[in-house]
């Protein structure tokens, strides 16, 4: 039973990583950049929801929606102000700018909410538990997994079926050709950031519902791990991000449970390294064949 317990927890954590990883992978695919600030958008989303629930007495659903709206606007603004001017620059330059943006978000949060960790209210989401024999699953876990599945399905359908989704795929493949086909590249990229940021807000709420400590640096480590998951699954691949995220969460929980709590992170990263040695382009990534 303990095994199943850990498995469920792993799936729950992995779902959160998956949602975050989707943001990284979509942005990477379309703008060929690593949005370092993504982890911190998660943190912002969590704080907004926190304020909504704790200070402004907003009902939970509205609080989450508020967080999503704020994060979406934040994501679009960041893209327009800091990343769009650097479309022609080297990827390293954009990376450093994203790093600066990450510092900026963390420090603004520090200014507004202070360094003291806040306790995220989990009563609304954790009100019940499901009992299956000896197994007890909290509603937070169930909601997390449920929401993630819905998001993954919705996103897959979106990119495959809708016009905007197809436009996103086109711009990812060949920006120049997409532009020539009449696709508004700027708008498509903005939308991608918007979706990613909205997902980040949801991830922030889900993360703090299961791990209720909230500080300006809360988004940093999950961000790094989710980014690792995205690469693990094959950067640029949406199914890859989902698979990578879920697997990473499961490996982390099992590693902490069966090998060592302190070395949990090390185990996750070690698994990543081993997988990449055998599949150098990630689990679902396609190796780039260089034309000679």
């Amino acid at each position, binding site marked *: 039973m303990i095994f199943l317990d850990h498995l469920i927890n792993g799936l729950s954590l992995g779902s959160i990583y998956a949602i975050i990883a989707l943001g990284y992978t979509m942005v990477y695919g379309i703008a060929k950049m690593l949005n370092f600030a993504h982890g911190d958008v998660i943190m912002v989303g969590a704080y907004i929801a926190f304020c909504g629930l704790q200070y402004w007495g907003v009902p939970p659903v509205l609080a989450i929606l508020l967080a999503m709206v704020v994060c979406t606007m934040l994501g679009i603004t960041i893209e327009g102000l800091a990343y769009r001017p650097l479309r022609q620059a080297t990827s390293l330059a954009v990376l450093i700018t994203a790093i600066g943006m990450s510092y900026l978000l963390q420090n603004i949060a520090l200014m507004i909410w202070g360094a003291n960790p806040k306790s995220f209210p989990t009563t609304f989401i954790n009100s019940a538990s499901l009992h299956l024999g000896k197994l007890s699953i909290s509603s937070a876990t169930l909601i997390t997994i449920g929401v993630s599945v819905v998001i993954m399905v919705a996103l897959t359908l979106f990119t495959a079926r809708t016009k905007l989704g197809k436009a996103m795929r086109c711009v990812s493949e060949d920006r120049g050709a997409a532009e020539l086909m009449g696709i508004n590249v700027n708008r498509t990229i903005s939308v991608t950031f918007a979706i990613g940021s909205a997902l980040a807000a949801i991830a922030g709420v889900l993360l703090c519902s299961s791990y209720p400590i909230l500080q300006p640096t809360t988004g940093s480590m999950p961000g790094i791990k989710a980014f690792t998951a995205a690469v693990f699954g094959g950067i640029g691949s949406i199914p890859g991000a989902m698979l990578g995220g879920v697997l990473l969460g499961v490996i982390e929980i099992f590693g902490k449970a069966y090998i060592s709590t302190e070395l949990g992170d090390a185990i996750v990263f070690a698994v990543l*390294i081993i997988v990449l040695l055998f599949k150098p382009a990630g689990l679902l990534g396609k190796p780039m064949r260089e034309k000679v």
Partner: protein
Amino acid sequence: MTKAKRKRLIYNLITFGLVVAAFFILQNMIAAKTISRSLKGQLVPICAWIVMAVSLNLVIGFSGELSLGHAGFMSVGAYTGAIVSGWLLEAFNMEDPVIRLALAILCAGIIAGIVGALIGIPVLRLRGDYLAIVTLAFGEIIRNLVNVLYVGVLDGKLHFSFLNKDLPEGVTMLVDGAKGAVKIKPISTFTAGFILVMITLVVVLNLVNSRTGRAIQATRDNRIAAESMGVSVTKYKMTAFVTAAVLAGMAGALYGLNSSTVVPTQFTFNQSINVLVFVVLGGLGNVLGSVISATFLTVLPEVLREFADYRMLVYAVVLILVMIFTNNPTTRAIANRLFAPVKALFRRKKPAQPEIGGGDAQ
């Protein structure tokens, strides 16, 4: 001497000259007690960060690979330095700080180099973003590992323990898990830092302007062409990576032995990113640039202490603005036009020459 050779010589001389001049000026200020206390405390860290930046530039700027775990080597070096120094003191009663420091730094470099070689084997099999992610992963693994490392000395022998503090009774602790390296006798000096910086400059500048350095740069510019000319890409990328690891390890020992404790949280991913920022702002492949940016950006947060709570905010905003302005084509064009008269002063006009070997079809 060819034009290129002369340019290179002047560049190298400026680099060394700047460091030597800074050292003498600062030494004078220390002797005359005109130096501020905060700057005095920064001198050894500045030296360490300069070495970190120059060594990382070797990997990113000259070898063309993004390494996101450089702080990991610094960490290995710091811990090795603390262990060696503590062991020499406890086991051999070696009181002389200079010899202890020298040996500590030397061992730190060697151990970090070995770790670099071991890490390099899997890492350098990958490309681009995947390589970067694996360096990040290794950096995090190292951080995790030193967090559960326990080292102590008893009767002249070193005892290591992992995960559990399973050491014999009465042992003198050198490394205490999450508490880090404890009760270090700080023995780093500005002079030692200066010497380390000079060694680093000599190694990197001489390496880059040699057969090995050219091979390393060739692997950066074009892998397939390099291999086709008989230059093994793996061998030379490994050379750059391990050399950088050795230097980073030595910087770590210097940095670690500057205070009485060394904790794992000093060498996180954030520190790797810090060094990355030094390198990119100073210019990829620009050693002098790395020296200047590392110095400037280490001192800046202290200078900004005035702004107290806002200083990291200001730092972040400045960083973003600098990146945008130096990389956006529009702003660059504006800057070029502004600085054109200054640039013209430095350019010697070459007389127009007829095309050799006939014109070129366009």
